């Protein structure tokens, strides 16, 4: 066996940074069908379908500490081959874990690796009939629901929409979200405020829940549960810390030249600092890793 000389090209860029969407390569889709009576928010023009074409997300995601996530993405893409989508898409997920921070971390990481926009929707703060497709018209102003606004403002037909706070929301909200993420119903979703039919079928849904059995039946039957949280295995914990560090680097525009030496100490962890951090919940971990890496970058600068 002979080993070719490895190209140490900056592979990390693929992991850490959103690939720039090049205009000519992106497939597009017009999500609005027919012409609306009122404002169309630009949805009558084609929207981009972003994201890396396929399962290389499953490889690059580096989130082996979430049990089943990589298999889910790989299987999903295997299924997707028949449909021949060349953009990022997965079946609706339920993120079962303790806190919203943890779900937000997983969703951010996936959005970053896949190169699609992420929209966080707080279901707990919605009016009970905010997502209704029909109903009596009251005097109040009706605006398009959050996922539609997200599509319009990102000019992207397949953002990741993370639903938080479903536990505190009205019971009807869960059922309405179920109609928005149902693969058949979502293709022709009637938007009451625009008076038009919109295709929500390419949205990537993630629903955070403290417990999958606390979900309403309409959602429970349509979601694939993934349990997120701090893993027990120290190696998996370190993978989580590494993912968080990449997230911090991307958020703070840190270059690998600045934090590389500090990051490399994950290998042997001489002061035990990384392993102390690795048990933290996502919110505290983000703070701790951010402080640590910014300090390391500043120490190099002075």
């Amino acid at each position: 066996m002979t080993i070719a000389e490895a190209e140490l090209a900056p592979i990390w860029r693929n992991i850490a940074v959103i690939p720039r969407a090049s205009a000519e390569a992106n497939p597009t889709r017009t999500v609005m069908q027919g012409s609306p009576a009122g404002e169309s928010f630009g949805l009558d023009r084609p929207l981009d379908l972003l994201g890396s074409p396929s399962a290389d997300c499953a490889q690059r995601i580096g989130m082996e500490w979430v049990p089943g996530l990589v298999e889910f993405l790989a299987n999903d893409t295997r299924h997707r081959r028949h449909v021949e989508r060349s953009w990022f898409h997965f079946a609706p997920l339920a993120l079962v874990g303790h806190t919203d921070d943890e779900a937000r971390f997983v969703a951010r990481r996936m959005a970053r690796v896949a190169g699609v926009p992420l929209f966080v929707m707080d279901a707990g703060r919605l009016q009970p009939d905010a997502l209704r497709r029909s109903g009596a018209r009251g005097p109040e102003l009706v605006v398009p629901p959050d996922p539609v606004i997200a599509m319009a403002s990102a000019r992207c037909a397949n953002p990741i929409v993370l639903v938080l706070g479903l536990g505190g929301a009205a019971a009807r909200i869960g059922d309405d979200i179920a109609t928005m993420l149902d693969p058949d119903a979502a293709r022709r979703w009637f938007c009451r405020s625009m008076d038009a039919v919109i295709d929500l079928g390419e949205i990537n849904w993630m629903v955070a829940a403290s417990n999958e059995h606390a979900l309403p039946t309409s959602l429970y039957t349509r979601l694939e549960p993934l349990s997120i949280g701090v893993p027990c295995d120290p190696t998996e914990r370190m993978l989580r810390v590494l993912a968080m560090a990449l997230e911090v680097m991307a958020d703070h525009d840190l270059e690998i030249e600045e934090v590389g030496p500090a990051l490399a100490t994950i290998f042997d962890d001489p002061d035990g600092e990384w392993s102390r951090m690795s048990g933290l919940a996502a919110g505290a971990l983000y703070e701790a890793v951010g402080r640590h890496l910014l300090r390391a970058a500043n120490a190099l600068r002075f």
Partner: protein
Amino acid sequence: MRDTAEIDPSAREDILAGSGSIEYEVRLDTASSTIGMFRVVGRNGASFAEYPVWTRTWRHRRHAASLFSWMLDKRGKWLLWGRLGEVVGPDRLLAMAASEISELRASQARDLLKKRAKARKAKARALKIYSFLVDRHGEFGIDLRRGGEDKGFFVIWFRQNWERERFRDWWRPQAHRFADFAAFFEEQGPRALERKLLAEMQETEKRVKLAGLSSGGRRPLRFWRGDE
């Protein structure tokens, strides 16, 4: 509904290549003493495609071999090493490996030295010969034993305690000759040694009696303290 969404067949092959489970593997090329970490994409249990993450060549084959065996023992960490190595490179990992290996070698050498020192001490102690009183049911003995052993190699038995005491009066000043007795035992055997000891004792008793230092009775050497 699909505007430009269809993908061409050539791109589809790339998509096929991209999907599948991923793992990292460390491999050693013994001919060039090169260690490389590879990202292996596997599908249905077979490796499908592989990309080198990093490779490093050593001047000496045994350095590469010892590093590689150290890495083989830590298979559970390859995923982390691969992911982290893609970001920061292998330098820190290899430095850690080298220091851990040298630490391991040092501790092994320390243990070996300790073991050798222990064996040497035991050997030195075994060269010294001691004598102890041993009692069997109704019998009274005096033995010769090597240092660090709990059983004598030679025992001389007496029926009565006073017989042993008489022998001991002569035996005690002979402590400097124990090693010679042991050598004699090795050459001639226990019976000859017993005879020699008793003969020497009686000869000493006679000599002491002639000199007028004997205490008489059952223990003529009772007040004898050896020759100058």
